[in-house]
């Protein structure tokens, strides 16, 4: 390491250069280590502890929390927890999928506007997302209430009992989730669509490719980088979401986020809550790893 290099007119060594770079680096790294990594590790430790009689933490090593996570309780195996985990995966998956389907027309529409108005249209997509999530979710509560036209229509069509509302219901959760995450797919997708190489599309059309074939072979692959960012930004928070199912789902449609929140508040079972959190983290990381392997190595931003 005694190689000398020139850095901005100074003769210096790589070691000295790194030490200088460290001053830029350390504050952020120390902050993230101290307030994310160490808390995360304390969560891991906590997940092996026991809940005391009054909701306090008893530091006895046990694997019971993880057994419960897989559904094993005092009364044998019950699918409740597993159901919540699978349901969370499923809801996040459907939300992401519908967001993708809705985002394509929007992204193409915005990209087709003249450059002068293009960013105004993009802003129009982002504005609702700059209004707090809790407010938007609560607004859906009203829109899906029994005396609002949506529910009235469903009642008239016989899809819904008279005087019943569309909320609370799984459908309401999906609607809330989709409107909450749509902009996260539209924005990165738009940046891919804007840079699209149209000569490939023309080539496909010259060769008499059908519309579907043109889309999947000339357009889709080119939008994959943007889509990947969108999927990651949607799927991960959708997995852990607890506000939307809490406000729109009713007591029977819980997701893993609600389960975690319950353990830290109503049930005061922190060790079990920690175990559920780690289960969620593992599911997230496995999903991410599978996705990244399939879609080559793509940058997040």
């Amino acid at each position, binding site marked *: 390491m005694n190689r000398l290099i020139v*850095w*901005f*007119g100074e003769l210096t060594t790589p070691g000295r250069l*790194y030490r200088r*770079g460290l001053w830029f*680096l350390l*504050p*952020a790294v120390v*902050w*993230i280590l101290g*307030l*994310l*990594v160490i*808390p*995360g590790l304390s*969560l891991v430790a*906590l997940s092996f502890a026991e809940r005391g009689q009054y909701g306090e933490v008893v530091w006895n090593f046990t694997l019971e929390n993880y057994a419960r996570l897989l559904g094993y309780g005092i009364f044998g195996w019950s699918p409740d927890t597993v159901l919540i985990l699978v349901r969370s995966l499923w809801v996040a998956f459907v939300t992401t999928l519908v967001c993708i389907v809705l985002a394509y*027309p*929007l992204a193409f*529409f*915005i*990209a*087709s506007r003249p450059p002068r108005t293009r*960013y105004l249209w993009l802003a*129009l*997509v*982002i*504005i*609702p*997302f*700059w*209004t*707090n999530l*809790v*407010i*938007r979710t*609560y*607004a*859906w*509560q*009203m829109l899906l209430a029994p*005396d*609002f036209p949506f529910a009235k229509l469903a009642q008239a069509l016989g899809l819904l009992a008279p005087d019943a509302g569309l909320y609370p219901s799984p459908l309401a959760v999906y609607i809330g989730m989709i409107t909450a995450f749509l*902009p996260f797919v539209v924005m990165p997708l738009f940046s891919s669509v804007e840079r699209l190489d*149209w000569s490939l599309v023309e080539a496909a059309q010259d060769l008499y490719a059908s519309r579907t074939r043109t889309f999947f072979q000339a357009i889709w692959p080119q939008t994959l980088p943007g889509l990947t960012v969108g999927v*990651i930004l949607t799927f*991960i928070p959708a*997995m*852990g*979401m*607890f*506000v939307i199912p809490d406000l729109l789902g009713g007591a029977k449609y819980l997701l893993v986020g609600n389960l*975690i929140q319950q353990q830290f508040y109503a049930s005061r079972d*922190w060790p079990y809550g920690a175990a559920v*959190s780690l289960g*969620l983290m593992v599911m*997230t*990381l496995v999903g991410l790893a599978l996705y990244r392997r399939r879609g080559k190595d793509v940058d*997040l*931003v």
Partner: protein
Amino acid sequence: MRLNPFVGLAAMATLAFLYLPMLAVAVLSFNKTRYGLTWSGFTWDWYVRLFSNPDILEAARNTFVLAALSTLVATVLGTLFAIALERYPWPRKSQGFLENILYLPVVTPDIIFAVALVVAFGAFRMVSSLFEPGLFTMILGHVTFQIAFVALTVRSRLKSLGPDLDEAARDLYASYGYYVRRVLLPLLMPGIVAGAMLAFTLSLDDFVISFFTAGPTSQTLPLLIYASVRRGVTPEIHALSTLIFLITVLLVLASERLTRR
């Protein structure tokens, strides 16, 4: 670009779908009835009551103080981090490690992060009374997730700048400090501002981290709205939501003007 008219139609429908909730809230904020959705006449009453409600004013103040302070800290730390990551010849291995640290707050679902903070603050409290739940703990939490977003935004700007400027500055005998102050930072400014704005909005919008780290005296607007939704909403909340929405629209239009210049 030729566009299938059906695509435009689908886009408009989706946009309408996104705006419907806000529209409903705005209409109801002028409705005379206290309960229900039936229209019974126009009134400004709820807006007047809103501004005489000390809880709401206090929550609004907390929300902005929290967002401003945490954005300030996160912007400085995140920018320094991005510069260090992109402009120093780190060995490949440590570069990978640093990038993983950077992505960690992005890929962690916020509820896990929030719960981890609850546990850690509980442990820290045994050492120091500094970590009582309140504005301070909320700032700590917000900065942690903001750093990553600032650093990622600034970093993408740095990447688009390319290495030529470094070389030009070096050839012209700029000292490192001079180069950072007079070349790098001015060129990075649009990225830094964009990162700061992103961080600010993330803080304003955050519910989960605040929900878990807030103390009894540090109510924010999202927490207040959540609590009142659970208790049964008052029309003041409609008025409040409408105002927040309008302010957002104005801010977006203003920033659009600024960046287009």
